[in-house]
């Protein structure tokens, strides 16, 4: 099975949609409590660090936005409740 990378997943989106998506993800990430950390890849991040990455639109930020976008797509398709 091959998966498009999360970054590729958002590349084809209209710029306005990308910006809206970014704002949605920022709102979600802001709810991460201060005493929680996200371990992703070879690093771990606080909420503030993730917000910074998303606002900067760097690789980490784009990956996180892409991950959230993929989740939204899958939940809309009902994929979360598919039987394996």
């Amino acid at each position, binding site marked *: *099975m*091959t*998966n498009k*990378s*999360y970054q590729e997943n958002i590349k084809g989106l209209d710029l306005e949609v990308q910006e809206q998506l970014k704002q949605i993800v920022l709102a*979600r*990430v802001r*709810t*991460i*409590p201060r*005493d*929680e*950390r*996200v*371990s*992703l*890849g*070879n*690093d*771990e991040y606080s909420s503030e660090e993730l917000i910074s990455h998303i606002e900067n639109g760097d690789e980490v930020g784009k*990956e996180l936005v892409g*991950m*959230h976008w*993929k*989740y939204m797509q*899958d939940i809309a398709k009902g994929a*979360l409740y598919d039987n*394996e």
Partner: protein
Amino acid sequence: MPFTTMNKAVLVTRPNHDETTNYLDKWSEPIIKLANQKHYKLIDLRGEKATRSVFEGYARKHHPGFFFLNGHGSEKIIAGQNNEYLLVYKENESLCAGAVLYVRSCNAAKLLGQSLVTSGARACIGYTSKFGFMRLLSSTTKPILDPLAKLFIEPANLVATTLLKGHSVLEAHQRGISGMKKNLKRMLSSESTQQNSNAVVLLWSNIRGQVVIGDSSATI
């Protein structure tokens, strides 16, 4: 390398040089305990022992039937202590010929996983994306008691424990997925909080990313 009988050697790598690897190290303890209970010949490369020379030495000498590899990684690399490369695409994959692998490293199933099977590994369960989890700072000194990390790592452990209990690669994969989905659904239920939304997305990413390469009917 002859592989005509069930090989009871199990090789585990658990570097612990940063918070992420420390968590995976501590959360691998139940798997280590089970391997001992089941009388596997356990090769536990923990912390400073998780180096390439030690890894290769034990792999060559004992031809483990199961490799359970934790640590940072990429499409082409599985790393050990201090991110020293242990298993590298097109370099030393033949060390795992005849074995089943569960690789808890980011992206390793994308290229290295397939290459391991092409080089003779019977099967590999791994991730085509970054394996992620969330944790509580307050649990830093006791990772195994972290209720947030538990949602992610405990179901992933089911892959390894299912294999150690003699079940097939497919069953191990499915039990891991099922465990993660159970936690996901709980987080999505009415019990959930706004804070859970990020955990749900990350857990879904782990579910989507876990794949089986090779012979899904293989057992250890």
